[in-house]
């Protein structure tokens, strides 16, 4: 596969340095480090309970790791919160869907435009011309994303009424609407059928290809992971047991042991 990428893989955009996270006595992550390069598709895999989602939650600032740090574009970020990370240009989706259930698809995606909305509530209340201008820009961008994801026909439906696969798409749409430089996807294809999975892969690769968004995804389907990711990091019991290209990972004895089990 030697096609020319529009956005060449560059320097590390995100680095996780020696992170340890424990909930009481339970160690979720132990001394874990890896990095994500700009414009790449990076997969995090591992058996259930390996600490993958906890890892994303640490990067995003929902969990506060006891040790270690996260650097973004080479700078260590002290006191990470989801809000600060969003402002730095990092967006995400959630494992168990965290959509705004009573709002329509369009409104959900419009919330993703929050950081591109500069007008305050008084200006909104009075509907000043600049509010209208900004709202139009945000709506146009959201409509663009909606047509990109091919969900035009459901854009006015409350999200809570949609089937699972479509909700996952809306969540990707909301993350895209932020125009972030990096998006974390927590099991974007869980519970999908083969066709939906193929669609989702197509969208992820298309975004990466056309806009150059760096993608970090957690996924269980090995076929998918090996197909779409540039590099893979494997976690097991909160530790990195493998890090490299899909081919390297497939040949890694530790990874094979973790997935298939070893005789003792």
């Amino acid at each position, binding site marked *: 596969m030697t096609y020319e990428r529009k956005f060449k893989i560059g320097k590390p955009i995100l680095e996780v340095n020696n992170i340890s996270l424990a909930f009481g006595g339970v160690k979720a992550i132990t001394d874990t480090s890896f990095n994500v390069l700009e414009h790449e598709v990076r997969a995090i895999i591992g058996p259930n309970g390996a600490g993958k989602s906890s890892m994303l939650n640490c990067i995003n600032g929902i969990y506060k790791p006891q040790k270690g740090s996260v650097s973004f574009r080479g700078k260590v970020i002290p006191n990470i919160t*989801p*809000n600060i990370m969003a402002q730095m240009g990092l967006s995400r989706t959630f494992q168990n869907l965290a*959509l*705004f259930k*009573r709002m329509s698809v369009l409104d959900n995606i419009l919330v993703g435009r929050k950081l591109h909305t500069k007008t305050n509530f008084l200006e*909104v209340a009075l*509907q000043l011309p600049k509010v209208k201008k900004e709202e139009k820009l945000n709506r146009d961008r959201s409509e663009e994303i909606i047509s990109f994801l091919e969900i035009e026909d459901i854009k006015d439906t409350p999200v809570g009424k949609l089937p699972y696969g479509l909700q996952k798409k809306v969540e990707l749409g909301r993350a895209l609407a932020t125009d972030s430089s990096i998006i974390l996807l927590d099991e974007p294809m869980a519970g999908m059928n083969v066709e939906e999975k193929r669609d989702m892969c197509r969208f992820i690769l298309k975004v990466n290809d056309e806009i150059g968004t760096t993608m970090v995804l957690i996924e269980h389907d090995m076929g998918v992971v090996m197909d779409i990711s540039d590099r893979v990091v494997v976690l097991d019991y909160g530790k990195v047991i493998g890090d490299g290209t899909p081919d390297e990972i497939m040949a890694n004895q530790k990874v094979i042991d973790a997935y298939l089990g070893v005789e003792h």
Partner: protein
Amino acid sequence: MKPIFMTYTKKDLINLAVCMVLSVLIIPTFIKTEYWYTSILIPWLCLALATIGQQIVMGYTGQLALGAAGFMAAGAFAMFNLILRVPDLGFVGSLIVSGLIAAAFGILFGLPSLKVRGIYLMVATLASQFFIIWMIDKFGWFKNYDSSGIITAQDIVILGKPFTTPLAMYFVCLAVTTILTLLAMNMARGSTGRNWMAVRDMDIAAESMGVSLLRTKVQAFAISAFYCGVAGALFAFCYLKSLEPVAFDIKLSFKILFMCILGGLGTINGAFIGAAFILLFPVLLNAIGNNVFHGAIDATIISSIEQVIFGLLMIIFMIYEPLGMAKLWENLKQSMRSKLSSSRIKNLKSSAVKK
């Protein structure tokens, strides 16, 4: 549906026009009895305004708050003191400033929402209810050292013209309520409202999208308290015509909460429907008691029946239609429309068969 003016669609503008014609032309020409203005329409508008405040914090932002009457008291007494001590401000100016003073209290008592949620927040916000009333009672300055406990509200004077007749006061309330309702609708439909609802539906996701929980919650509490403050000032000056802290007790807070829930959480028109229902229902019950049973039922029993029915309705609405009466109204219109269209299709079909 595309908005054609501000955030309003063609349908909204038609509704607005109908409401305006009804409230500005038809009501004043046909209703001549003072009772309707002083006991129904004026309190309805004031309480609907306070309910919009409650909607913003509870229906839109999802923060269970119970203390609307406290903010109303803050607004009412701020108004009294402003007119008394800063007469240059004028009625409208005082109204706005008293709203802002209530908003300051809203910010203060909204802060617990950052740490606690649900029923615990409800208990925490009760503090506003009791603290504000206590403060007004404790420090004589707020009541201008009046020993009787009940102070007469000053007359309303706007641009040198007195507004003292029930009809004039009705128009004052109507104007303020209309303007604030339209502003609330703009906020609810714009980016501000989207942030509120995002925090309500899934706060962690909202934060990950860059919505600041602190700013959004505190903002909602402030705006809510502003609406309650203005409503409280109107309530005292146009309806009660007196100021006493007891009028703003916890019962009023509960009343506003009921209006909010029965009307429909997260709707602006629900505030008006809920307020109308809660105000008119006791009147209706009394009328039934007097005219059907000819006073055979004791008045205290009637007021107990009222409580029982409110309680039942609350439970029924919470279980079967959390979106309240506004949603029922919407469903009714929908079914009428589909019936109309289906009968039209039938007509078309039968005419096609005949051919």
